[in-house]
């Protein structure tokens, strides 16, 4: 009998263990470090024939490794913002060998050229980075940087106050004074490089009614929202572009709070007795552009009620919400945008350009046209004029109502030197030092899903990548100015369709191998060519590449029916 029971127990335990076992042991050490440097081969990819064809929506026409340290990009159409784009961290340069070895998915153990290298990623608890001793730039002052995360601002603050972390991201709105008044801490505000807006899908009645949308525009008291639900440093939005971005129009005409006018417009739109607009959708996750979503949603509901508009709050799970917005399923929703790279196109084209998602319904051709012109105009004044025109069109169509530029802040212990907040949320820890400490602990909102940032869109992942990987160019520490990075220098032809980058000499990857033009070409190519066997990534979307350059080579066949 005893044996019988034992056998059964063993079986169960064995089952449990089998369930727990399987899979796992395939995380080979990647990048041997002793790979022989092959002689440099000139590579040239020329796809200019694809430009403007039906299949290819992209703007990149060719990449060429001219010699060991020279890379040349050719474009179908001029792009003023090209340097700002190549500085973005989704275009970080990987070693061609590692991309090959990991099958195009260096998710767990990225090898870069940056000031820090990945020491350990203990999933669920922390990411540990150690200083790259062979770094080409100034050696980082703190030997170890640890990333931790917590979704709750209260928890982040307590961790900082109790001294177990040295810096935190996104101080809670109500905690600004607490941090500012604490002599042992420093509060560093981020310039608001984002916009919070109320969006409508103009295909869904009654939102196809322009006057109704405008009425809502006049019904919202932006000052009240900023005053009550936003931290210091936030501003009322008068246009879609935040002030820190080029092409911001001083004194643009936007909506102001005017409830009488809202009621008039409502009556003209045929809703004199008020109207029930159904769901106001949002997600509860705080973002720099919207630090207190449920509270703001409640207050907008209350404000709209005062002019006779009824809405019901519809709080959705974050992923489902983005999904629904992108597929045009939401008729009225609260969303925002934070700058990836500091250029007007990053705000305008993504939302209102010809190829934008149906989040606002079918677009407005007049706006498409203006934006297309603005994107390819090289003359600054002409460009500014076109964007002013775009502002006017958005004000008229009102498919998105810009409401706020949300301020946010990071906090550090007072003794952290070089602490800074970056408007692009890409704080550089190599620029910080902490007297007498051998590690600096940073607590952000969430854990990255993967560390191959070509295929990540989440700022939580990008910030980690930005310590490990570098792009051809970079943004200045704590600012938005484009500065040299892996490329020492660059130049373009007169019509801005050909860009040549000269790489820095003597840069090595963390595994000791040297950086050359081939690595650059390969890093771009596998993102660019959707049919490439290495075009894998974490989920294979390469969202940013598509957003930055318009499209992939050999894109998956378009929808049928």
């Amino acid at each position: 009998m005893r044996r019988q029971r034992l056998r059964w127990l063993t079986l169960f335990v064995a089952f449990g263990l089998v369930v727990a076992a399987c899979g796992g042991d395939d995380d080979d050490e990647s990048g041997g470090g002793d790979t022989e440097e092959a002689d440099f081969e000139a590579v040239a990819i020329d796809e200019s024939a694809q430009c403007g064809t039906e299949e290819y929506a992209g703007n990149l026409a060719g990449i060429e490794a001219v010699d060991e340290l020279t890379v040349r990009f050719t474009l179908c159409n001029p792009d003023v913002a090209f340097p700002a784009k190549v500085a973005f961290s989704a275009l970080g340069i990987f070693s061609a060998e590692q991309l090959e070895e990991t099958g195009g998915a260096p998710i767990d153990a990225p090898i870069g050229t940056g000031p820090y290298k990945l020491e350990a990623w203990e999933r669920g608890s922390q990411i540990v980075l150690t200083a790259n001793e062979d770094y080409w730039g100034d050696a980082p002052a703190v030997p170890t940087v640890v990333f931790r995360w917590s979704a709750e601002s209260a928890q982040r603050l307590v961790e900082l106050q109790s001294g177990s972390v040295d810096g935190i991201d996104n101080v809670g709105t109500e905690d600004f004074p607490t941090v500012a008044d604490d002599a042992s801490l420093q509060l560093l505000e981020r310039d608001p490089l984002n916009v919070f807006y109320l969006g409508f899908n103009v295909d869904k009645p009654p939102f196809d009614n322009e006057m109704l949308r405008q009425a809502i525009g006049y019904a919202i008291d932006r000052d009240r929202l900023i005053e009550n639900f936003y931290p210091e440093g936030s501003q009322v939005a008068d246009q879609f572009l935040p002030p820190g971005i080029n092409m911001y129009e001083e004194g643009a005409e936007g909506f102001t709070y005017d409830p009488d006018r809202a009621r008039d417009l409502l009556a003209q739109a045929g809703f004199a007795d008020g109207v029930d607009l159904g769901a106001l959708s949002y997600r509860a996750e705080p973002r720099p552009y919207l630090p207190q979503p449920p509270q703001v949603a409640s207050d907008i509901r209350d404000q709209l009620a005062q002019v006779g508009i009824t809405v019901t709050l519809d709080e959705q799970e974050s992923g489902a919400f983005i999904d629904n917005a992108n597929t045009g399923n939401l008729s009225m929703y609260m969303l925002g945008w934070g700058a990836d790279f500091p250029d007007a196109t990053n705000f305008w084209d993504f939302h209102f350009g010809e190829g934008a998602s149906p989040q606002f319904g079918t677009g407005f051709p007049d706006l498409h046209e203006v934006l297309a012109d603005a994107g390819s105009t090289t003359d600054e004044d002409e460009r500014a004029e076109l964007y002013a025109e775009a502002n006017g069109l958005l004000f008229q169509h009102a498919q998105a109502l810009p409401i706020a530029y949300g301020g946010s802040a990071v906090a550090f212990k007072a003794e952290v030197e070089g602490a800074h907040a970056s408007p692009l949320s890409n704080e550089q820890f190599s620029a910080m030092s902490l007297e007498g400490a051998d590690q600096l602990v940073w607590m952000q909102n969430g854990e990255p899903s993967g560390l191959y940032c070509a295929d990540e869109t989440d700022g939580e992942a990008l910030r980690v990548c930005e310590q490990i990987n570098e792009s051809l160019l970079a943004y200045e520490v704590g600012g938005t100015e484009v500065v040299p990075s892996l490329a020492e220098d660059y130049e373009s032809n007169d019509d801005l369709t050909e860009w040549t980058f000269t790489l820095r000499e003597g840069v090595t990857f963390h595994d000791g191998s040297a950086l050359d033009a081939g690595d650059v070409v390969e890093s771009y190519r596998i993102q660019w060519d959707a049919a490439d066997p290495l075009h894998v990534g974490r989920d294979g979307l390469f969202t940013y590449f598509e957003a930055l350059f318009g499209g992939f080579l050999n894109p998956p066949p378009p929808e049928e029916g």
Partner: protein
Amino acid sequence: MAIEEIPLSEQAAAEIPVVTGGRQRGLWRDAFRQTLRKRSAKVGVVILALLLIMAVFAPLIAPYGEREVLIATEGLEPRTEPCIHVSVAWIPDVPVLRTVESFLESNGFSCPSDEPQHLMGLDGNARDVFSRIVYGARISLVAGIGAVTFAVVIGTVIGLISGFVGGRTDNAVMRVMDVLLAFPALLLAIAIVTARGPGLFNAVLAVSVVTIPVYARVVRSRVLSVREQDFVAADRALGVSNTRILGHRVLPNSLTPLVVQATLGVATAVLELAALSFVGLGGDPDQAEWGRMLALERNQLFSSPHLVFYPGLMIMLNVLAFNLIGDGLRDALDPRLNR
């Protein structure tokens, strides 16, 4: 959570003596009298009565509306500290009292009478927390009792059929109940709400579904013991229909354990509903539901603890009331403890 199911085990339920017809009412009257004699149960009844008064007369008690935003009307800010008027006009102007008053005022326990009174402060939308707490009693009570009622009804039907039909049906039904019980209740509830979409009704339904097996088991074990009794055999011999036996013999005899279990069940249901709201799967985001109120102000734990404290306290009181009453009822009805 599921642990709550244990206080009245199936075994205990089966041991409760079987009674017939007329004695039922007397037994209940005794039980209630006995329950009320216990001090802890009295406390429970008092709390519950207060909650009921809050719920029924909410519009009279609450100085403001459930969703009334006070930003514009009074120039108040979100998350203003509680303001309690200690000095009222009719207090005689005695120096001692004035001293006490100014002491309280300077220590944050009170505020000048020219400022509007908010007993529990304002929430993140500058809504009066006290008013919302009062309205919250409605939701909490209705949802908790509703969830349990539904579970009891369905569970009873399943238990009756399973126990009375017996054989394979019984076996199959009980295995299904075992499967349901194998999942942590909260996890199952989260899965159900996610599947059906967040909302108060769905949350209630989820909390309800996960507790069905408990009631089904209790009723079934009662059925099994009643079925063997002489008077049922006599009924059968007299040709009384099964439905009648079920309705007149089995059901009344299952009431005792059911009532005890259900009272304790309300406590569990309230806890679980609050937990669902806390993870963002509760009802209308604007509704004055205690779990939701707490979740919304969770990040103010260190800066405005009162916003977290009051809803938490209310959830606890609500659960406590049902636990105390349920305990008392069980002690009164469970013969093993009648010494």
